[in-house]
């Protein structure tokens, strides 16, 4: 590819790329990643603007996980209290898992017997308050403790790429590596299987995370896994 056509491609692809403080021309309602000043809408993060379905959003390229009620996540135990666990979910603050939300009958002070530091769970966010603190629960659908396996961390913004269109990416990784995988909305991914299979899947995840904004990823990953 010549230098000139490379440059052309870049400018074409840069469409919608915005930086903090950039004015966004829109009549839509303000969504996320923006701020308002004097009745105008500006981007507040580095990302791609998206003016669809009546909302002006800027999807940030990076950033910590912002918990939302109903999100299914993978959480890792960071601290144990007498009746709660403090769980790392990749957000600004650790999340609380209260013993009454665990589904186990936990005697007071005996939390570590059920979940000790480093243990992972598949959980759901069930409460987020204005002060930024949040709680998760294990008493929903398929929520449970995740035995064995490892947890891989990717950018929360890369999660849609890890899943792929209609789950194409994740299906490919599961089939090619013969592993069990749970993808949390928070960018924590739990992988279980044979040692080498796990490291194969882990490598795939890391590649997706690094190249989350490039095209033709599924094919690239399939090629990587066939090696």
């Amino acid at each position, binding site marked *: 590819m010549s230098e000139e056509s490379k440059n052309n*491609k870049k400018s074409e692809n*840069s469409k919608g790329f915005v930086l*903090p403080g950039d004015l966004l021309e829109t009549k839509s309602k303000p969504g996320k990643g923006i701020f308002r000043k004097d009745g105008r809408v500006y981007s507040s993060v580095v990302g791609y603007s998206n003016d669809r379905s009546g909302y002006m959003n800027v999807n940030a390229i990076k*950033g*910590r996980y912002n918990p939302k009620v109903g999100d299914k996540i993978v959480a890792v135990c960071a601290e144990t209290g007498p009746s709660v666990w403090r769980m790392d979910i990749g957000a600004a603050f650790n999340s609380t898992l209260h013993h009454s939300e665990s589904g186990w009958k936990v005697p007071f002070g005996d939390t570590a017997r059920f979940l000790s530091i480093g243990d992972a769970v598949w959980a759901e966010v069930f409460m987020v308050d204005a002060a930024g603190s949040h709680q998760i629960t294990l008493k929903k659908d398929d929520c449970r403790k995740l035995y064995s396996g490892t947890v891989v961390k990717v950018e929360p913004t890369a999660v849609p790429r890890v899943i792929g269109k209609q789950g194409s990416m994740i299906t490919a990784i599961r089939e090619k590596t013969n592993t069990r995988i749970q993808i949390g909305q928070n960018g924590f991914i739990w992988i279980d299987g044979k040692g080498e299979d796990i490291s194969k899947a882990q490598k795939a995840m890391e590649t997706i995370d690094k190249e989350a*904004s490039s095209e033709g990823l599924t094919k690239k990953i399939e090629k990587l896994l066939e090696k």
Partner: protein
Amino acid sequence: MAGQTDMELIKDGVRLDGRKPDELREVKITAGVLDNADGSCYLEWGNNKIYAGVFGPMECHPRHKQKADRAIVQARYTMAPFSVNDRKRPGLDRRSSEISYIVSQAFEKVVMVEEFPKASIRVDMQVVEAHAGTRCAAMTAASVALADAGIPMRDMIPACASGKVNDVVVLDLNKEEDNYGQADLPLAIIPSTGEVVLLQLDGHLTPEQFEEAMDLATSGCMDLYKIMRDALDKSYGGKK
């Protein structure tokens, strides 16, 4: 400022390093260079070399510094022992505490701190090689690192100094001009509004010279802002 020299710092409008009075040194910015930080930046500004890393928003420690209604920015400016000619004793000293403090203050003006109550945003700036103007260079690097970390903010802050050598107001002092010049005026602005978020003055300027130095530093900041934007565009804009 205090030093004496026989060197002619500026002659016929040309400075020691061949620049014109209103010219910046060469600035190179690369965003996202560190894997372990949430956001990072490497900046080369003339002979200055600086790394900036951003962590957070995260729980604020020590707890008594938490603000119930907003986040705080905890900036930390440090110089490597090998960053200057005479080995610098490592760790925080009077000068670096001052710079850390004013940089924190400046960033709290642009970062949307009200979105993260009780949190802390850590900004670490490490000067690897110093050649005058490191506080401005460190701030510029930190701005890019904050944007790289995906932290919501109103704008990025470019920072740039102007000063006076041989009674001529010049932009972006180099080492010799800083040591033997007559004045040094570091400035940081919010480009979209023109607000001043950092302004210091070391040395003597007449009111007219001050105005001239402010204008020069402001235009330097705007040039720098373009370089910062290009750096982020280069790192992320070409993809997708």
